[in-house]
């Protein structure tokens, strides 16, 4: 039964990949997205069965060489992440049916449909991979297919840069993974994933490599810079998949490694916790300042990945300190946040795609008043915004609450220094979640409310039905996952004692109704539309009077100016010696891209310096290369003679 589900899903995805390339027509593109929708239903059934029954099936698919199998396995961890894929894909595929038709050329439409399916397939196979080889192969397919999708509008200069950036970072990530897996292989002598019971100091190198590798792919600070470049470049449906699912696949990989270790060390947990908290707060602080809608959402993904890593760090700390209940709560919180973030962030990216499609720009400052022009998109976007801002009874709140609850109970920890660390990271998490609320008030308020600020927002119209339907599917999942959170978790066997959001939601709706009825029935209910918004007597209100995105975030920019690293330098010359009569001067405001200028560029310069030296050895003559080989052999022989 399980085999039937998984093979049907895989076959559907493969057909979906091949079909639009073979038969190039609108129909086959539609069929291709239809197939990815169908595959997600099979995946849903598969993941549901695995999660509920706890079965751990093993499918040995292809044997390439002796000892080199493509084994597929699934357990409850991978089941959870397959569920995540299965939850995001339906919405994205329905949305794409219409969205893909807006690409400029037929060839690129076909390619986008095919690559979307390939991308989904690769992510699915990474999660199902039973050994390291299989994992890395599909990991690379996942990276490359998403790279091609990022380069969808390859002719734009900024997209070329984004593609290159993404390519370098993702290759770096794979390189670290290779190193990590090879060092694990040296320890165990086996490429299978399985439990590892080695002394922790043997595992230090694999841990650091895998943490860095998966951290780069997940977008952990300071390896996060590819996200704000790649997301605006990719089509919105792809951004939704990348942010919603691909980052979570990296989390899955990291968890797969971490949970298989029987002897982790405390400093790992501390490192993960600190890196997570830092990512969370820096991600949201950068997002607040951003006014490109998709780049803003990319930064917000960095924030949420940070929150997930915070949960993983807490899990490790509590587990090592022997508080099993809190460890379980944090781990469940991290996984549930990964799931919820997948839902609402894909919804937000799809919504952003609709807005960009309707207005033709990504700049928030150009929007405004879209609630009157695109009411359905607005409602769906509001659901996602409320969720990501972590307001009860939505799903985003539940997972954050689980982490908060773990923090609040941490008085049971025996080590005082750890407690101090937890207090600091707790306040960072609190700051993060409040800033996220501010961020989404800004994004929603400036984009959808008040008057349109430009012509393009003025003339925006509602997007076609399939796009709305795709978003609506995600929105429904998002709401259900919030309301039934404690029931879903209980069904999966996690009885965590968290508040029941269904009860809360029902009381809230009931109270709302009660207030409504009471107020309606007390006194006359007359309403009137006035001529204008009150503006101190100014009769006509212009869009230029509205608050802008930059204006909205100004107080936060001032408060956190140390973090933004804004350099304001000025020179003045005076006409007199007492410096009282101002003559002339200059002022300069410079935004330092801290990570790029201080971390990435020096490394890049060093690499290019070394490679320019190395390239001098290349002269294209055969005899020189023979000489190199000769020297290399001699060196090796000497080396093995004396040192081995």
């Amino acid at each position: 039964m399980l085999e039937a589900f998984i093979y049907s899903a895989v076959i559907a995805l493969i057909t979906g990949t091949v079909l639009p390339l073979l038969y190039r027509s609108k129909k086959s593109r539609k069929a291709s997205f239809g197939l990815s929708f169908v595959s997600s239903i099979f995946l849903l059934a598969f993941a549901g069965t695995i999660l509920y029954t706890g079965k751990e099936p093993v499918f040995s698919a292809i044997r390439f060489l002796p000892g080199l199998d493509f084994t597929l396995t699934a357990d409850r961890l991978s089941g959870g992440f397959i569920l995540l894929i299965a939850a995001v894909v339906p919405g994205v595929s329905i949305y794409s049916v219409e969205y893909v038709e807006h690409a400029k050329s037929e060839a690129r439409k076909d390619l986008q449909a095919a690559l979307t399916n390939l991308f989904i397939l690769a992510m699915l196979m990474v999660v199902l991979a039973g050994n390291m080889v299989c994992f890395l192969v599909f990991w690379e397919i996942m990276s490359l297919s998403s790279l091609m999708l990022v380069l969808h509008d390859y002719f734009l200069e900024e997209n070329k840069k984004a593609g290159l950036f993404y390519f370098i970072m993702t290759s770096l990530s794979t390189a670290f993974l290779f190193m990590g897996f090879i060092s694990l292989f040296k320890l165990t002598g086996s490429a299978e994933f399985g439990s590892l019971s080695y002394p922790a100091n043997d595992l230090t190198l694999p841990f650091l490599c895998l943490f860095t590798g998966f951290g780069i792919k997940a977008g952990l600070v300071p390896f996060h810079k590819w996200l704000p470049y790649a997301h605006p470049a990719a089509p919105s449906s792809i951004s939704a998949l990348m942010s919603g699912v691909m980052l979570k696949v990296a989390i899955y990989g990291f968890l797969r490694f971490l949970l298989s270790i029987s002897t982790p060390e405390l400093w790992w947990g501390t490192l993960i916790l600190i890196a997570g908290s830092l990512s969370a707060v820096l991600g949201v602080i950068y997002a607040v300042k951003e006014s490109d809608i998709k780049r803003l959402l990319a930064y917000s993904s960095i924030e949420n990945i940070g929150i997930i890593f915070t949960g993983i760090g807490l899990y490790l700390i509590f587990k090592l300190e022997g508080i099993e209940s809190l460890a379980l709560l944090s781990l469940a919180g991290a996984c549930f946040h990964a799931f919820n973030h997948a839902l609402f962030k894909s919804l937000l990216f799809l919504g952003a795609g609709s807005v960009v499609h309707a207005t033709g720009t990504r700049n928030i400052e150009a929007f405004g008043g879209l609630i009157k022009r695109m009411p359905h998109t607005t409602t769906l976007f509001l659901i996602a915004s409320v969720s990501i801002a972590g307001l009860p009874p939505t799903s985003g709140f539940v997972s954050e609450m689980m982490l908060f609850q773990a923090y609040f109970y941490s008085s049971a920890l025996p080590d005082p220094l750890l407690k101090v660390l937890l207090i600091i990271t707790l306040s960072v998490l609190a700051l993060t979640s409040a800033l996220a609320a501010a961020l989404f008030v800004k994004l929603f308020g400036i984009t959808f409310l008040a008057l349109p600020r430009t012509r393009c927002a003025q003339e925006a119209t509602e997007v076609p039905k399939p796009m709305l339907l795709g978003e609506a599917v995600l929105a429904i999942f998002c709401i259900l996952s919030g309301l039934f959170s404690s029931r879903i978790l209980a069904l999966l066997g996690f009885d965590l004692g968290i508040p029941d959001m269904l009860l809360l939601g029902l009381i809230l709706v009931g109270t709302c109704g009660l207030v409504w009825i009471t107020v309606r029935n007390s006194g006359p209910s007359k309403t009137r539309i006035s001529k204008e918004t009150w503006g101190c007597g100014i009769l006509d209100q212009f869009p230029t009077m509205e608050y802008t995105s930059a204006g909205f975030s100004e107080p936060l920019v001032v408060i956190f100016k140390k973090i933004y690293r804004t350099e304001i330098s000025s020179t003045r010359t005076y006409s007199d010696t007492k410096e009282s009569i101002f003559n002339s001067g200059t002022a300069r405001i410079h935004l330092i891209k801290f990570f790029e200028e201080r971390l990435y560029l020096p490394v890049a310069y060093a690499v290019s310096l070394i490679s320019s030296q190395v390239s001098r050895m290349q002269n294209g003559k055969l005899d020189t290369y023979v000489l190199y080989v000769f020297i290399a052999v001699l060196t090796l022989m000497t080396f093995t003679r004396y040192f081995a």
Partner: protein
Amino acid sequence: MNASFLLFTLLNTGFILLVSPLFMSLIKKVKAYAQGRKGPRLLQNYLDLRKLMQKEVVYSPNSSGIMRIAPYLNLAVLLLASLFVPVVFIPDAPAGIGNIIVFLYLLAIERFFTALCGLDAGSSFGGMGSSRLMSLSAVIEPTMVIAFAALAYVLRTVNFHEMFAITAGSTIPESPTLTLISISLFIIIIVETGRIPVDNPATHLELTMMNEAMILEQSGKNLALIELTHAVKQTILMAILINVLVPWGLVTELTFAGLAVSCLYFLLKASLLAGLIGLFESSIAKMRLFRLPSFYMMAFFFSALTILMEVFA
């Protein structure tokens, strides 16, 4: 759901709704006395609310559904939050009601939609108010969470109902550290209800406005709902401080005499606290906007200190 909880929802919510406007008037009265004026009478707020209820609602043509829904939603949210803070008696509540994290985020819902209302009509005042509110609330959030975490640390539970059952059972504050938390809680009341030195509720000057700026566009019934929401929020926050610091009188069993005593005690203690807030407001000047984070740090310091004392005790 049981009978005790159902009765509690009616009594507690009703009581809080009933007395909330009174404390608003009381603070105004104390401020007026401090300034040498006579001030409005104590029932003035009730009369204002009644009058606003009779008036028509005027909407700006630029405004959207947000402005029409938010006042109702916000009051409902605050009424839900009032179930988390028992004032009349401590019921046998279903799991999850009373959770302090849920409570904190219920307040966040109110803030979120108030800020959206501020942006809705497209007025620059509203935008300014919501921008300031969201920025400053982001900076106060760590303080709030740490203060509540400190409560959870000291009382070893994350549920208000259980916390108050512990504090009400003892005659002196359960732990001396609770006094420290109370200072933070007091600052939180000042910040959350938008009082001097954070914001001035009596002003209509754009330089100082935060909360008032966001509701400039509101009128009639919606304004009444917003005023009531504000009053309820203040009462709930005051009730937390009272139940932590001076919990005497709060009963855990449901008897008629007990209820009466509980209500009377609360009325007395909250009136004193309201007087204190009024005096505090009168004795201090409005701070510059960007000085406020350092004011918040003070509250942060006290609650962090509490936790540290618990940690190293």
